[in-house]
């Protein structure tokens, strides 16, 4: 079985982002970029399935500017076998991304497609669900456990109020939540080895995807700041303030 894993290049999760004063966006010049943390978890899961003998090949896909190839190299260093880079504008919308991935799925015929549940830049949480819809496949979103057996994927999902277990026919789409696994750090030898692994280059036109934006981003602004309040001296004072000043208890 082949696994396709989708990885996105985003502003590193440790970076405190700066919103441009003119409302045109978030400053990414000179900012550290990394693989979306949820995609790292998806990649780790794909590699573990290969190591367990469930999968035979792991293909890492990234869609975006040339630099997206760095993110593919990270996946290759973690253990993916080869990469596919689809050249596109970095701000491609989730629907367009899902269309690209579904076109690739028709070429590559994977048994499983793994993605992170959301990217930490646009926080959209859409691509996996849209991809499953376009392919007519089952979807196991927000997965915290994944087992493949007898042509089905057993997925434990994190839902409001607890956990839910689903059984999905293969092929299917699974999106990774935080606790699916703890991604490995790529070792130096594996980083070196990744440099010689192949990355195919494709364009949106070759895949027949029309990525015309459906949304117009009018402004990106910093949220209204919250003022720091008072440091109090005692529990009694706190209870008094909550009762008489804030009137919340």
């Amino acid at each position, binding site marked *: 079985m082949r696994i396709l894993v989708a990885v996105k290049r985003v502003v590193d*999760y440790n970076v*405190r*982002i700066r919103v441009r004063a003119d409302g045109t966006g*978030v400053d990414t010049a000179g900012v550290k970029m990394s693989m979306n943390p949820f995609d790292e978890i998806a990649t780790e899961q794909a590699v573990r399935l290969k190591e367990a003998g469930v999968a035979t090949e792991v293909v890492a896909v990234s869609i975006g500017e040339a630099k997206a190839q760095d993110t593919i190299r990270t996946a290759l260093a973690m253990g993916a076998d080869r990469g596919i880079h689809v050249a596109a504008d970095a701000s491609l919308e*989730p*629907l367009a991304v899902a269309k690209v991935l579904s076109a690739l799925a028709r070429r590559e015929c994977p048994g499983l497609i793994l993605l992170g*549940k959301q990217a*930490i830049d646009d*926080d*959209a*949480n*859409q691509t996996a*669900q*849209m991809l*499953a*819809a376009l392919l*007519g496949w*089952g*979807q*196991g*979103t*927000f997965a915290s456990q994944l087992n493949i057996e007898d042509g089905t994927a057993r997925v434990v*999902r*994190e*839902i*409001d*109020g*607890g*956990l*839910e*277990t*689903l059984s*999905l*026919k293969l092929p*299917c789409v699974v999106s990774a939540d*935080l606790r699916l696994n703890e991604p490995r750090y790529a070792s130096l030898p594996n980083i070196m080895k990744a440099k010689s692994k192949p990355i195919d280059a494709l364009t949106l036109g070759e895949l027949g995807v029309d990525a015309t*934006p*459906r*949304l*117009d*981003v*009018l402004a*990106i602004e*910093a*949220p209204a700041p*919250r003022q*720091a*309040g*008072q*440091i*109090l001296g*005692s*529990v*009694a004072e*706190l*209870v008094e303030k*909550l009762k008489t000043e*804030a009137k*919340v*208890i």
Partner: protein
Amino acid sequence: MRTLVLAEHDNLELKAQTLNAVTCALALGRVDVLVAGADCQAVADAAASIQGVDKVLLADAIHLKHPLAEDVAPPLVQLAVDYDALLAPATTSGKNVMPRVAALLDVQQISDICAVVDADTFKRPIYAGNAIATVRSLGAKKVITVRATAFDSAPIGSQRAPIETIEAPPPANVSTFVSAELTQSNRPELSCAGVVISGGRGMGSGESFALLEAVADQLGGAVGASRAAVDAGFAPNDTQVGQTGKVVAPELYIAVGISGAIQHLAGMIESRVIVAINSDPDAPIFRVADYGLVADLFDVLPELAQELEQ
């Protein structure tokens, strides 16, 4: 403009977030509600009494008992022809179903909106709430998930909107529900509670969460946790408050032993009053708190529970 809101429910009760989504939908136009489930007449009755709702559509079928996206999306897609916008609260269920609906309709969904600017323009948080994007939909049809905490609850009235039964498309047969493990608790649900008290890494252990529970019991509140506390195994996954967990906006949020990582702030910054209890005076949580106590939580929590009891 006509809108359709997907009701969140468990076949027995209508979930509160549906009421917030209805308020949001009313800002766009007329509102119908879809209840998709099995043996869920009671939910349809509850939805019919929400003020402002024109009509309730009830798709009652055994294969809709568990809200599998593969089976809930088709009735929405079928109904979409009559509506300008389809909305659902941004719960794990709404987040699971709506993008599937959007893709089948060839619509770019707008996720987790926190404000309606006009019929085509919405605000939504990005980068864990560190930026707010204003986006305008260029297409005629809209699929939207709603951040429930950003909209008031639509009131329940004494009137009753008509309930219309609709035929659900047959099951997709690509996925099957196996089981669910739901947390049993007498406390209010985290995302709708008026008071939330959350513990972080500073709690040191799962056992010490009993100290938070004692305070929560006095205030009728819910207990949450930071990602660090969940990662350390102190608290269950579904109690996590933050960018990737639950978003809460209670009247009172008490953060105990929580440093205040961006990731956590994203889930609670809209709370009306924030209290921080932390032994580290430099903890970033104090920069957003209305009231702070720089003290040992193991001293403060029992004292707070006692003080509240009096």
